Structure formats: structure tokens, C-alpha cells
């Protein structure tokens, strides 16, 4: 029998049921850790530390979750705040753009396709963190602009702009993306 998020949250709140909370962690650990890894420019250790702190905070603050947004949206919001707190202290995570790389000579289509996945990871690292966060939430995790605006605590027009601007930069940095075909 599979419990819904709402059932599990109710069990945690009424009985302090750690198994129910564990099920919530198991469900959402992957998207939260992947989101934080993108924000931390691939630093998996930092991402895992932040993810652990995210779930500990969720445990402490679960009674403030009102159910008006999806539980995953609420978790992403905590995760983003954790990242911002650390980013304020660590300059390498600062929010500035990375300089636009010089254009490279064209590669063959086959080489380009095989490199494209790695290139995307690198290209995402070079985006401004607000653009990266908006793209990861909307394009990779399927959040609406409104949900992403809740997570990022900004107007939904800003999210839309950041997604468009970020994708435009990715297009410039991934000249071969048009040859990509889903496998």
C-alpha cells in the first residue's frame, strides 16, 4: 500500500513517525540533491550537506507546511534558502555570471552528440545562479513558473525571464544541441 505525501505528513505530525518521514526523504532525496548539486556547480559533497540540512529543517518546520503548494515545491524552497545562506558566505558560489567562453571550432556531428551531455552540465554551471535555478526547476523538474516563483521567492515574471535568458545562453554555448535526438 502506498501512502500519499499528505498521509505521511499527517503521520509525522500526529505521531512523530520517523518511518513516515523517512519515506518522504526517500521520495524526494534525488530531485533535492540534484537541484542543489546544480546550484553548487557540481560540488556533490556540499549539495549533500545542504540536502541533509534541508530535510532536517523540513522535519523541524513540518507543522508550518500548509498544503497550498506541492510538498516538493515546499522542499525546493527550503533547499534554495539553504543554498543562498551558504552562497553568501562562500565567494566561489557567488551569483555572478561566468564569462562567456570563446567559440570553439566546429566538431563533427557524432562527436558533438556524444559530448553534448557533458557540455550541458558545464554550460549550466556557467549560468547566473538565478537562471540556473529557474531552468532546473522549470525545465528539469517540471515546476510551473508560479511554483518556481514560490521556491525562489520572486515574481513569476522574473522566473519566466530567467528561464528564457538562461536557455538563450545555453543555445549559444551548445551550438550542436539542435542535432540532439532523444534516445
Amino acid at each position, binding site marked *: 500500500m502506498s501512502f500519499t505525501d499528505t498521509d505521511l505528513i499527517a503521520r509525522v505530525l500526529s505521531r512523530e513517525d520517523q518511518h513516515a518521514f*523517512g519515506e518522504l526523504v526517500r521520495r524526494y532525496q534525488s530531485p533535492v540533491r*540534484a537541484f542543489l548539486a546544480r546550484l553548487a556547480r557540481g560540488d556533490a559533497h556540499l549539495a549533500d550537506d545542504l*540536502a541533509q540540512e534541508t530535510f532536517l529543517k523540513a*522535519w523541524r*518546520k513540518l507543522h508550518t507546511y500548509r498544503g497550498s503548494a506541492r510538498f516538493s515545491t515546499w522542499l525546493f524552497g527550503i533547499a534554495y534558502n539553504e543554498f543562498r545562506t551558504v552562497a553568501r558566505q562562500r565567494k566561489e558560489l557567488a551569483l555572478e555570471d561566468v564569462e562567456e567562453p570563446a567559440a570553439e571550432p566546429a566538431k563533427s556531428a557524432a562527436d558533438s552528440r556524444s559530448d553534448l551531455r557533458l557540455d550541458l552540465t558545464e554550460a549550466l554551471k556557467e549560468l547566473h545562479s538565478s537562471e540556473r535555478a529557474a*531552468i532546473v526547476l522549470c525545465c528539469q523538474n517540471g515546476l*510551473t513558473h508560479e511554483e518556481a516563483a514560490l521556491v525562489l521567492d520572486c515574481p513569476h515574471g522574473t522566473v519566466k525571464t530567467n528561464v528564457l535568458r538562461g536557455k538563450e545562453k545555453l543555445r549559444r554555448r551548445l551550438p550542436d*544541441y539542435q*542535432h540532439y535526438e532523444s*534516445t
Partner: protein
Amino acid sequence: MNRPEDKDPLDVLLREQNPHIDDDGFTARVLTALPPRHRAWLRPTVLLGATAIGSALAIRWLPWESLSLPDLSALLSLNSQVLLPWLLVLSVMASLAWAAATAVQWED
């Protein structure tokens, strides 16, 4: 409502590049580190109880017999014998009302 365009190769690439991360002991580490849950109801309940006790003491001890409706001339003369009991009662009542409102609206 935003929907990625299915025909845009960049959207397809982004969707497919969303990695799944194996749990690999992560959930167990989180569960081991869980602190006792903060009892959200405890602090507002204590505040509400203290407010109730304060109200009872106020009803018992405030100088009700000294309270008389001051007329305008007494107010303008700033007669302390008239004004002080009122100021005392009003400040105690305001404090109790604030404490009760805070307890009812409490949110961590």
C-alpha cells in the same frame, strides 16, 4: 502555466539530463540526525496559560473601587488620583490582550 516545448531539442535534452541520484544511505543519515520534534503547541499554550493567570490576578487585585468615570474637568486637570488607576487598568488589559492575541496567532 508553462509547458516545455516538446519539439525544442534543448527542452528534450534538459529533461533527459535530470539525473536520478541513488539514495546510497542518504535517507539513513538524515534519520540518524533527526532531533526531537519541536512541540509547536507548547509555547503558545504556556503563553495562553500565563495570560489566563494574569487575567485572574488582574480581576482580583486591580483597584476597581478607585475607578470612576472621570468627567472632562478631572481629565483636563490631570488629577493623578483619577488618572493613575485608569492608566494601570488599561495598561494591564492591553498587555493581556496582546499576550492572548500572540498566543492564538503563534507560528514558528
